[in-house]
């Protein structure tokens, strides 16, 4: 979570609010922030740290590991309408790559800004060409996009 905290400004610039969830109480979140995370990230954790001690939230999102009594590493991108646009759930021993989440957020924001008229091909990043789905594009994607552009 410290990686997210360190890049919080980047997320704020994109208008993204961050909410983290674990089974620890809000009291434990405070001590983790004060004793450890604030030593990794200047100013400590800037976002909301939710306490889900009973696992109710994790269960609702399919991120609850019943046998261990912990949350799995779940990450959800929720749009301004409250709709889940992307999700990823990993088992605990491997950490995430925030840059990929940011890329996905930028792509979903781009699609939304065009009212869904444009689509972002594989590996899209801001500044790269998008696709405009329609009758003319059918069978002609090869003319405007190929895997080397990823």
């Amino acid at each position, binding site marked *: *979570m410290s990686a*997210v905290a360190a890049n919080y400004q980047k*997320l704020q610039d994109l*208008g*993204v*609010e*961050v*909410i*983290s*969830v*674990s*089974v*620890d*109480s*809000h*009291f434990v*979140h*405070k001590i*983790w*922030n004060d004793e*450890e995370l604030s030593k990794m990230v200047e100013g*400590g*954790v*800037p*976002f*909301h*740290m*939710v*306490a*889900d*001690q*009973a696992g*109710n*939230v*994790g*269960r*609702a*999102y*399919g991120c609850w*590991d019943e046998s261990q009594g*912990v*949350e*799995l*590493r*779940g*990450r*959800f*991108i*929720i749009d*301004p*309408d*409250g*709709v*889940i646009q992307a*999700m990823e759930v990993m088992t*605990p021993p*491997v*950490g995430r790559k925030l840059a990929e*989440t940011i890329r996905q*957020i930028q792509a979903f924001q781009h699609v939304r800004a065009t009212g869904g008229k444009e689509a972002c091909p594989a590996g899209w990043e801001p500044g790269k060409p998008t696709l405009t789905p329609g009758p003319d594009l059918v069978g002609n994607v090869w003319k405007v996009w190929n895997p080397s552009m990823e």
Partner: protein
Amino acid sequence: MSEEEAVSCARVSSSVAGDPSSETAAPAESSGKQEVTVMSVRVGQKAPDFTAPAYRKGGFTSLKLSDFSGKWVMLCFYPGDFTFV
């Protein structure tokens, strides 16, 4: 958005909108039959709303996901505080 909460020793738990099993202290039915609410999430569908205690920048609050309506949200679950990855 989220209000400052009074700190007490009572264990405040999280609850999910529309999930009766997560609502507080509902007496168990004596029928012996347990209702299990299976909820699932899917992309393209509404994110389940929830209310839960939270910590942010020195204060304790009650956070409701739907209060963030109109904003992009990155919701991240992780196994626990003081873990290594």
